[in-house]
């Protein structure tokens, strides 16, 4: 009887361990598939997009909400085994993209540009708050998030691929996004939009000139941040070491907006005062205003001087900020007035400080 009981126990134990082994094996297979199909990238993109939405919808202090965006490192090769991009030497988290022809490279760049654009909110949201500039007391600078770095494993690239002939702009103009009926360009610039391109982008050791005929000169509808634009992607030439695909945003308030913001603050202060002590505010406010007025009148030259200087500084800063915005956006916007207000752009440049510094004053996200 006892022996039978022992056997039963052994049977249960062995069946349990088989179950555990099967479960572990299943888990390992699931994990393998998880990594094999690079779901991590999808998770990263979703986490980034969610942080973008969170930042965009925060009622105040949105610049304090971190952007959970990691730069994707992509090594373009024609072989999976034994291939490596020199630019990513000793770097972790490098993904590989297999290409067989020029069109594959063009599609890859187009897709990454589109991914960056959608991930960062399609230019519909203001992500990089510059509070001081809103009041004309601080400068503006463009802020960026580097979505992808693309390097080429030239040693293992298929002989059919000629990087100097890769033309992602043309690809984006002529190819539809999978599952839709619109081209990359149409989608990113909006139905009523268009896009302007830099006509001469210099690369180290080569340059890329956009054909005049390819320029799309439709008028762009601009409303605040609803500027749907894409910069012309650089054509990777033979000497291109590494490309960066980044999202850039800059905004500069108009002079009227600056004064409106001051008005809004005064209004908010008055409302708060009314809410806390309504009677005291109603009874006391006219007296306070009168007192301020008479004091100013007593020292008229000093008071007028202070008002004039303060007004001049605010006005001057606003003008300067709009000039900065123009310099960062003029290559992608058709009208100077639009460019002065700001823009949201996905840019493709060489991954070096010279090119990136030209467009990014601050870079957010993780390397």
């Amino acid at each position, binding site marked *: 009887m006892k022996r039978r009981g022992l056997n039963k126990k052994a049977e249960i134990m062995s069946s349990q361990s088989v179950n555990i082994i099967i479960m572990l094996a299943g888990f390992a297979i699931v994990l393998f598939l998880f990594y094999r199909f690079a779901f991590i990238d999808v998770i990263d993109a979703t986490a980034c997009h969610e942080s973008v939405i969170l930042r965009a919808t925060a009622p105040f*202090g949105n610049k*304090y*909400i*971190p952007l959970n965006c990691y730069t994707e490192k992509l090594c373009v090769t024609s072989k999976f085994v034994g291939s490596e991009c020199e630019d990513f*030497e*000793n*770097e*972790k988290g490098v993904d590989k993209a297999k290409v067989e022809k020029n069109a594959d490279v063009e599609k890859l760049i187009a897709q990454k540009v589109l991914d960056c654009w959608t991930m960062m909110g399609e230019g519909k949201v203001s992500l990089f708050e510059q509070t001081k500039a809103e009041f004309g007391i601080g*400068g503006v*600078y463009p802020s960026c998030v*580097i979505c992808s770095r693309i390097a080429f494993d030239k040693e293992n690239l298929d002989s059919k691929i000629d990087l100097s002939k890769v033309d992602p702009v043309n690809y984006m103009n002529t190819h539809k996004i999978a599952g839709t009926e619109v081209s990359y360009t149409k989608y990113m610039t909006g139905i009523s939009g268009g896009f302007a391109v830099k006509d001469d982008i210099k690369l180290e050791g080569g340059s890329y000139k956009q054909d005049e005929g390819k320029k799309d000169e439709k008028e762009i509808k601009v409303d605040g941040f609803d500027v749907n634009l894409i910069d012309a992607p650089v054509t990777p030439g033979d000497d291109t070491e590494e490309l960066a695909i980044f999202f850039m945003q800059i905004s500069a308030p108009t002079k009227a907006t600056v004064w409106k913001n001051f008005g809004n603050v005064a209004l908010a202060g008055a409302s708060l005062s009314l809410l*806390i002590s309504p009677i005291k505010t109603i009874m006391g406010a006219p007296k306070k205003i009168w007192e301020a007025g008479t004091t100013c009148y007593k020292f008229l030259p000093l008071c007028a001087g202070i008002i004039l200087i303060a007004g001049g500084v605010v006005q001057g800063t606003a003008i300067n900020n709009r000039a900065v915005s123009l310099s960062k956006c003029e290559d992608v916007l058709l009208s100077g007035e639009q460019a002065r207000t700001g823009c949201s752009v996905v840019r493709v440049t060489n*991954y*070096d*400080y010279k090119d*990136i*510094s*030209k467009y*990014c*004053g*601050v*870079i*957010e*996200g*993780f*390397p």
Partner: protein
Amino acid sequence: MNKKKFNKKGILMPEVLKILIAVLVIAALLYLTVSFYGILMGQYKLQQATLHLENIINKGNELENGGKADYLLTNPVGWKLMDFNKQNEKALCFCPEGVKILDTLQNYESCSKLGICSNSKKKIEIVLSDHVIYLIKGDGPKTLTIFAAADKITVRPYVVDPESDPMSEALKDLEGQGV
């Protein structure tokens, strides 16, 4: 008559108290929100700094003697990359605003606490007179040149024309040691 007046005061007092409590609670909530954002932002910048520091040290450690690599330092803005002499060893640190740039044990400890410090297999040094590389808001990223000499790794901002670099002599010496 007196009693009536007293009652009026009695009604008003709880209202004043309620307002006071409401104001205090709002102030506390505001303080908590600001602190929460501060913590989030501090962690965000610390994570950026940690990743960059890891990358720089990995690059340096993997380089062969005499090898050179460029690294694009993109963030965190407002922080600075510094080296510290830590009992004959050099530590590379990424320190936030507020940490003084003098190479003292106190500053090292303050940077280790508020920022991130890391030792590499080899000695590591920033080849600049003040041993500090700043990331300034609005200036964009910085390219660093990492160089592996025989016994140490050096880090310095990328220079377009090395001949015009005031530190070029020191660099030539180092490169001589490495090759």
